């Protein structure tokens, strides 16, 4: 039977790892290479690494860093941040990365999804939507670290990117980011119904029970988390952690 995927998500800012709350107030977590190495030794299911500066700074991805991180992974690695062209995507995949994630580029150039997936296969193309609740119900999509609002409807976008060749969709809840109070189950429900490709939820996990709750409700799904796997305890002490095989089995 296919297991649900439990995925640590790391954010890179100024060459170092950070953790945010509602996409703000970044707290320094440390060196990306050592963190990835520890996650690898803990045999995590997959790993997501997002460079949160690349798009905003309008610069190329840090290929050297990506290569160094990929070298440490004996599990699939998904990289996102600053990818705008097919050749960038191909170059990153050739460095040993399994999946590339695009976010803002989708809105500048939706055809990019088709172009990339026709070259590398749709299984390697992940679309991330950073999502915030609207005041009077519903959700809106943002880019550029929650600074730019996108005018299209979230559900329509979810359907469109799948038609264009997306292999996975990650929904990142801005409201729940770093809050550690649980996932937005309504949001998952809304999106899961509209996805025929694998879906991953990110934002809000504060304890392992939050993950088991999502798995119980939704079955085959990816549960990604940042704070949960880098913080420990009430002082949010930085400590890389991940459930061992026994504890993971208990979650599903």
């Amino acid at each position, binding site marked *: *039977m*296919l297991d649900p995927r439990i995925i640590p998500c790391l954010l890179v800012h100024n060459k170092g790892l950070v953790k945010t709350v509602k996409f703000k107030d970044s707290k320094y977590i440390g060196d990306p290479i050592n963190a990835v190495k520890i996650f690898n030794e803990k045999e995590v*299911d997959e790993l997501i690494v997002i460079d949160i500066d690349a798009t905003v700074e309008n610069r190329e991805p840090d290929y050297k860093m990506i290569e160094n991180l990929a070298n440490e992974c*004996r599990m699939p690695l998904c990289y996102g941040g600053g990818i705008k062209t097919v050749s960038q995507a191909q170059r990153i995949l050739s460095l*040993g990365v399994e999946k590339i994630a695009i976010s803002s580029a989708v809105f500048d150039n939706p055809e990019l999804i088709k172009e990339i997936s026709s070259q590398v296969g749709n*299984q*390697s193309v992940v679309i991330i939507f950073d999502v915030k609740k609207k005041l009077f119900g519903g959700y809106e999509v943002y880019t550029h670290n929650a600074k730019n609002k996108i005018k299209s409807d979230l559900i329509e976008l979810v359907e469109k990117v799948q038609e264009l060749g997306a292999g*996975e969709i990650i929904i990142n809840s801005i409201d729940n980011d770093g809050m550690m109070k649980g996932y937005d189950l309504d949001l998952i429900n809304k999106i899961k119904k509209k996805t*025929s490709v694998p879906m991953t939820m990110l934002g809000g996990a504060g304890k392992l029970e939050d993950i088991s709750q999502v798995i119980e409700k939704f079955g085959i799904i990816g549960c990604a988390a940042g704070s949960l796997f880098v913080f420990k305890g009430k002082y949010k002490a930085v400590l890389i952690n991940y459930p061992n095989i026994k504890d993971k089995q208990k979650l599903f």
Partner: protein
Amino acid sequence: MIGIIDYGMGNIKAFSNIYKSLNVSHKVVKVEEHLKDVEKIILPGVGAFDHAMRQLNRSGFLDALNDLVLNQKKPVLGVCVGMQMMANCSEEGVLNGLGWVDATVNKFNKEELNNKPLPHMGWNSVDCTIDNQLFKDISTNSRFYFLHSYYFNPENKDSSIALTGYGNKFTCAVNRGNIFGVQFHPEKSHHNGVQLLKNFSNLQC
């Protein structure tokens, strides 16, 4: 000497890193000359079937590769699309496969999947149906990482050596003589994958 075929598809570095850590001599094969002293072959692959076949056909060393595998009987391990390429053809595309194993590649049946997402993505258990050197020291029902939307369907069920369940059970590993194939990604399956790749390097064929 293990030759990891680089025809533009697949995570070459991941295989290379693992064999480096195991201290097994290996090289990346980009041109025909590189095949000279290769005793075992890894054929990786990700992406679409036709695209992969096109790349391999253009590589300039397909004939030499065929010779090594079919005539010289050097052990070869096809991984994911690399395994699918060893079939006759695929429902995903129109080009012919390598035909090393009498098989087709089929799309997962949506009804049998019962709303499960595609691609088949994540860790699933591999049930060995027969003892095989490739799975030495790997307990049955071990988990490996899968990422694909089509599956390998051998004509001769004897060549199927392991099954995985997604919707129905499908063949996730094959072996016919010197030819091996796995649908999952041993290069991304932590210690189980490392063990399998180690077993492949130790094969007596």
